[in-house]
């Protein structure tokens, strides 16, 4: 029962903040709504026995990534975009397409027999940082290393992009 109430409240907050992210005009407000949405999803992770992922979500996503977002929005002063609204038929078409997408996915999921009970008490605490770290460095060592290379590439790319052109460096 308590799980139901928590799920419903969090789901309502998650959907409301997602709509807020998409709908508000000011990009800063949009970013703040997104922070709230990410925190709500972190609460879902806690509800799903994944404390490590929840903490990483808060620290990396709601923390670092969103601070970067807000920093860039405020630095550019791009809270509101100006200019021609572009294609008129795009918004109704996008709404219709999104409705079809959501309806289709919901239909597919609710159709399938998913009355799967939570997998009892898992052998080890499922979201245990030690278990995740052990798995990352043994069976999934290759993706882990590829990820580190990806981060290095991103870092170098950002430095190259952010370098001021024509400064000779």
């Amino acid at each position: 029962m308590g799980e139901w109430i928590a799920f419903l409240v969090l789901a309502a907050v998650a959907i409301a903040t997602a709509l807020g992210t998409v709908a508000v005009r000011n990009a800063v407000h949009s970013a703040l709504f997104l922070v709230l949405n990410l925190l709500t999803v972190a609460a879902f992770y806690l509800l799903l026995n994944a404390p490590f992922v929840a903490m990483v979500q808060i620290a990396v996503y709601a923390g670092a990534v969103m601070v970067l977002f807000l920093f860039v929005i405020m630095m550019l002063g791009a809270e509101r975009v100006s200019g021609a609204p572009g294609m008129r038929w795009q918004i109704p078409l996008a709404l219709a397409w999104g409705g079809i997408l959501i309806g289709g996915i919901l239909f597919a999921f609710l159709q399938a027999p998913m009355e799967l009970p939570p997998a009892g008490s898992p052998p080890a605490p499922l979201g245990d940082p030690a278990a995740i770290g052990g798995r990352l460095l043994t069976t999934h060592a290759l993706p882990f290393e590829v990820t580190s290379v990806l981060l290095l590439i991103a870092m170098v790319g950002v430095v190259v992009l952010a370098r001021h052109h024509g400064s000779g460096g």
Partner: protein
Amino acid sequence: MVTLAHYLALSALLFGIGAVGFLVRRNALILFMCVELMLNAAGLAFVAASRYRGLLEGQLAVFFVLVVAAAEVAVGLALMVAIFRTKQTTNVDDLSSLRG
């Protein structure tokens, strides 16, 4: 009892909202945020599946998605700053030409 289907439905809903936002909005920075919304919805589906199947792999997938998303945001925002320097706008309709 909350079942896997509920979590997957919520995840689909969040993904759909992000997708619609991506198509509707014109500010490139908000488009990035909508991508984050969609990635996040996928992460919720992964963790829910991980819980209900009793497998750890879902949480590892979220971990990798998180890293890729962070890299994507860093490069994407650097691109936006570089574009803003020359074009003075982040409206994607004004950024449709391939000339710098």
